[in-house]
């Protein structure tokens, strides 16, 4: 693989994120939520890196940590080889320009009291204070057209638009400063199915034209298959499996990925081999010992209960964190 040799655009190195829950001074043990545990991966230029996992597994937390909205408890985040997670606000400014974000809820991500024009101009005026009013206007128009919006919408307020239109406005705002890297935190999950495809296409068009790299958070596996080039599967704050989309969908190795993929609805009945998962996701406040998946895993043994598995690369370019796969107990 040639990609291995290229430097990664974004590298996430052994990130941990622990949230302290509100506690009072009489409590001996402060309750903690371990949202992300030792997650590392690299995103290469031009990639669409998809993070999948069920609700509450730490996908959004990870995305927000990468963007600097949250500070990692431990670990490092690198952008083009430069460490950025410990930078002060002012030093981070060039990275604010080259990294952008699209949010999940189109109804909350646009300031209801500002017109679309003002919202779109804001990042430009902040990062390029030298631009003239005319240049700003032209840029806004260009981006609006490129995401399929009518440039005359500028005078209106967000509440006058539908969910899909707002999400396209949100994408337009993210594209305003010509970023290289965009984090999309479940950008289509709040939308109608018919609109989802439209928004995805807008994002893919933008990627082609503007040479973008995406970190795409989703829980929709069919979207991953359509959109992603690399997939990371998360469970309870840990990365289970990391692979090229084709490799992963052809043959999932981690038991959790296998069960996850078997849950995709299929058209023909013969293909249906839905393996059901028993029990519930354990609470992130008290993580299971060893492998976080061991108490629901059909292949778990004693080692899984005690030892935390590491993410190990396999020969086909994927990485799996599972003792069973490593020992050769599981090959489905």
């Amino acid at each position: 693989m040639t990609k291995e040799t290229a430097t990664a655009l974004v590298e996430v190195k052994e990130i941990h994120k622990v949230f302290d829950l509100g506690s009072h001074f009489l409590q001996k043990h402060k309750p903690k939520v371990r949202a992300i545990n030792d997650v590392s991966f690299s995103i290469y230029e031009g990639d669409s890196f998809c993070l999948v996992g069920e609700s509450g597994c730490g996908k959004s937390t990870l995305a927000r940590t990468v963007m600097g909205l949250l500070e990692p408890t431990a670990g490092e985040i690198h952008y083009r080889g430069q460490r950025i997670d410990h930078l002060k606000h002012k030093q981070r400014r060039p990275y604010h320009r080259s990294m952008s974000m699209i949010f999940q809820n189109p109804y909350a991500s646009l300031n209801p009291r500002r017109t679309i024009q003002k919202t779109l101009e804001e990042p430009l005026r902040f990062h390029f204070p030298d631009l003239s009013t005319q240049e700003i206007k032209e840029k806004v128009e260009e981006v609006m057209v490129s995401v399929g919006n009518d440039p005359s919408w500028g005078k209106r307020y967000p509440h006058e638009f539908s969910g899909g239109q707002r999400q396209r406005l949100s994408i337009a705002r993210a594209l305003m400063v010509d970023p290289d890297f965009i984090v999309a935190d479940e950008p289509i999950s709040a939308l109608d199915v018919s609109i989802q495809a439209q928004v995805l296409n807008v994002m893919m068009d933008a990627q082609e034209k503007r040479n973008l790299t995406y970190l795409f958070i989703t829980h929709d596996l069919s979207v991953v298959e359509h959109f992603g080039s690399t997939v990371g599967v998360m469970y309870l704050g840990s990365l289970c499996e990391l692979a090229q989309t084709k490799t992963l969908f052809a043959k999932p190795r981690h038991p959790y990925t296998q069960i996850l993929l078997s849950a995709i609805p299929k058209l023909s009945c013969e293909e249906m081999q839905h393996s059901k998962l028993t029990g519930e996701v354990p609470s992130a406040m008290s993580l299971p010992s060893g492998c976080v998946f061991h108490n629901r895993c059909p292949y778990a043994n004693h080692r899984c209960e005690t030892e935390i598995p590491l993410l190990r690369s396999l020969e086909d370019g994927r990485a799996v964190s599972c003792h069973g796969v490593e020992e050769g107990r599981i090959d489905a």
Partner: protein
Amino acid sequence: MNRLKTALDSDFFYRFKTDKVAIVSFSVLMLFFLAALFAPLLSPMDPHDPIQIDIMDSEIPPLWSSGADTDPDERFLLGTDQQGRDMLSAILYGLRISIVIGLFAVAVQMIIGIAIGLISGYFGGRIDSFFMRLADIQLSLSTMMIAIIVLAIFQASFGADLYEELAIFMLVMVIGIAEWPQYARTIRASVLAEKNKEYVDAARVIGLGAPTIIMRHILPNTLSPLLVISTVQVANAIISEAALSFLGLGMPVTMPSLGSLISSGFEFIFSGSWWITVIPSVVLILLILTINLLGDWLRDVLNPKLYKG
């Protein structure tokens, strides 16, 4: 003109038009405001000017009353007080002072309260705890108590002459500072709700600094509850001022507000000169009532959950 048309077509204006209580309160309130604004033009004499006051005119009853010791005088529509001051002029000027103190005291409350509320809501943590405990302490001491202590000390240490000059300023500051927690708490609650919305995250992702985010994104979205408390607070400030003046700690008798007028007439109420107390009281009650009714109406309109069918 276009803006005016949008405003007239708005739901807000429609609900105003269809609510009789709102129309009446608003009209009465506007009447008071205009009367206060044009007091120098409307009043027959300047009640602050001792030269125009003649002690021989004292305690003349209002025009329509009869049976009092002295006969009504055509010059004094609402009668005169014990110094011979025309009550109509005194009330108009008093209204002016009361409204000025009410508005400016609320402006002071607003500035302090909004600043503290925004900072403590946005930054949270220790800053938040510090300001909110300060607010708790402030709220546990009643406004009247603080005002009485401060004003009494000021009067005692700097003398009554200086106090008379600075009375308006002192009242504005004392009432303003004593009531900031109302604003700070309301703003803080709204900020806590707003700051977790994604548009704030979007602004942070752009790289905007905290002051810009607070002023440009959060503040405009926290303003509607402010409008409602402001009306209540103006009424409260006017009442506080009246109460302080009644106790002799507010406006001096030479520059009476509504409260000082009520207080100055109180001594004469049993000797038959009821009008010196009653007429300013009625004006004060009407003023407060209309402000509160308007505030209630505003709260109902701005809170969509309270639609009354």
